[in-house]
């Protein structure tokens, strides 16, 4: 009797253990199930490289290139801002800050990670958007630049915490060795600590970028949502995520528009899958 109970419990535990694999597969399966149907009407190349996204015209034009470029533009902007700041403050927190400040700064970064994206979007709308509008003298402040700045803030907590872990995991005797040779603290950081933790820092950057590409609400609220190919960073753009979030409510279940939005979901899922697998490989390389 007790053995039977033990057996059942252990099977239950195993089932829950593999649940994560099951859910990832399920997500992929259902995106495919709903999304692949779009390729009955558009070819893969027309879908990915088409210049026009007019999903409700007759016939619908389902080219997501403007959306991909919108996502890329906003992501590059966010990366340029968040990588140096994120890695810089990871170095500061891990290596330089006095013990009391360390806790305060870490709490500040954790606080940023905890703020819901819709709240950040709201704050961006009332502060950043008017600022960008006035500084650059634009007709609207809802631009790729505003989105980049806001998204940079959402990537920073990830970059800081993963990069900080990478720096902590560098063996202590590396640092001691450098000091013993007469290197200054900065020379030690620059020549020893950073190279030694480079794969972890690379993983941090990738995970941060993954966060940016997948971010939805804040981006939808402050990038202006114009589905045209952007020429500069000071115009409204529309990202892949914002398109799905904004249009899913109007799409008819089983229609081409609906299928196309799920196909965008497949693209997003694959991007995040590749980023996470590669980042995981980098993190694992470090541990060995």
């Amino acid at each position, binding site marked *: 009797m007790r053995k039977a109970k033990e057996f059942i419990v252990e099977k239950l535990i195993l089932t*829950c*253990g593999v649940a994560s694999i099951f859910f990832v597969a399920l997500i992929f399966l259902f995106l495919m199930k709903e999304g692949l149907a779009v390729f009955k009407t558009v070819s893969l190349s027309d879908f990915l490289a088409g210049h026009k996204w007019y999903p409700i015209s007759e016939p619908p034009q389902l080219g997501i290139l403007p959306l991909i470029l919108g996502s890329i533009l906003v992501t590059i902007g966010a990366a340029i801002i968040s990588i*140096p*700041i994120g890695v810089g*403050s990871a170095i500061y927190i891990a290596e330089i800050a006095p013990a009391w400040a360390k806790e305060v700064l870490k709490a500040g970064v954790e*606080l940023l990670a*905890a703020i819901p994206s819709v709240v950040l979007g709201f704050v961006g709308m009332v502060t950043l958007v008017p600022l960008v509008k006035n500084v650059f003298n634009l007709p609207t402040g809802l631009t790729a630049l505003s989105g980049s700045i806001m998204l940079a803030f959402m990537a920073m907590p990830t970059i800081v915490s993963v990069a900080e872990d990478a720096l902590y995991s560098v063996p202590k005797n590396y640092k001691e060795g450098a000091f013993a040779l007469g290197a200054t603290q900065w020379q030690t950081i620059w020549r020893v600590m950073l190279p030694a933790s480079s794969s972890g820092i690379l993983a941090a950057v990738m995970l941060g970028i993954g966060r940016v590409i997948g971010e939805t*609400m804040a981006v939808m*609220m402050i990038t202006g949502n114009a589905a045209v190919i952007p020429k500069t960073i000071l115009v409204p753009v529309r990202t892949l995520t914002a398109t799905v979030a904004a249009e899913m409510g109007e799409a008819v279940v089983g229609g081409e528009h609906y299928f196309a939005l799920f196909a965008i979901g497949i693209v997003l899922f694959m991007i995040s899958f590749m980023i*996470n697998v590669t980042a995981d490989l980098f993190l694992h390389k470090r541990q060995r």
Partner: protein
Amino acid sequence: MRNPYRTQKIAFFFLLLSTLLIVVPVGLIVVIIIQKGLPAINWQFLSEVPQQGMRAGGIFPAIVGTFYLVSGAILFALPIGLLAAVYLTEYAKDNLLTRIIKLAIVNLAGVPSVVYGLFGFALFVVFFKFGASILSGSLTLGIMILPVIITTSVEALESVPASFREVSLSLGVSKWQTIRNIVLPNAVPGILTGTILGLGRAAGETAPILFTVAAFYLPQLPASIFDQAMALPYHLYVISTQVPNVDEKVRYGTAFVLLALVLSMNLVAIVIRSKFRKKKKW
């Protein structure tokens, strides 16, 4: 000649600057929301339904909706997440399956929130025919917070010393009884921390509930888990982008309530964690 100490000074200045560039805006965001949001908070705002097309009145249905959604998500995610963590710490061997499980958890954590929304819509709303309902929304949020629960629970279980298990097993107690009576009770604070962090995450997310549950405006409270509901983050999105001429006070007030809810959960989690660390007897 380059002076290494001057280089160091310049470098440290920029590192400090970048840290401040993160921490100061965070402080400002919180201060702005408190300063402009707090005056809007009164009993009516918290206990009444929205009025005049959401331009006035309160946010009570949104608070209730978020409460339901978050409870549903945790009811679903906690048992699965906890048992998954038990599997990973107590049963899993260092093999390919374990490696794939860990990779799946990492991926689950990285899936964009709007993709969870699409998935929840396709599976729960359309395939299982739950419709846009609290059930669909809760399950979607539950799968989304699963990685948070698993990773924090794994940490909590791993922090229980191996000797505890060995003593129990050497007394002839079975493996599951050891886990239930020795390992789990000692890991409760850590598991609680993870659960609360998961709750906070679920309360703040908007994209996964957009198509699975969220109602634009719904004056009455949901009667069953098959009803739609309003939710705080979606309500904030609606009144700041979809409805024109909403009173500033209503917007800031809603943002304040949402932020206060999420941050207080995180604070509780941090307090539990630090208390537990101090009290550790091994």
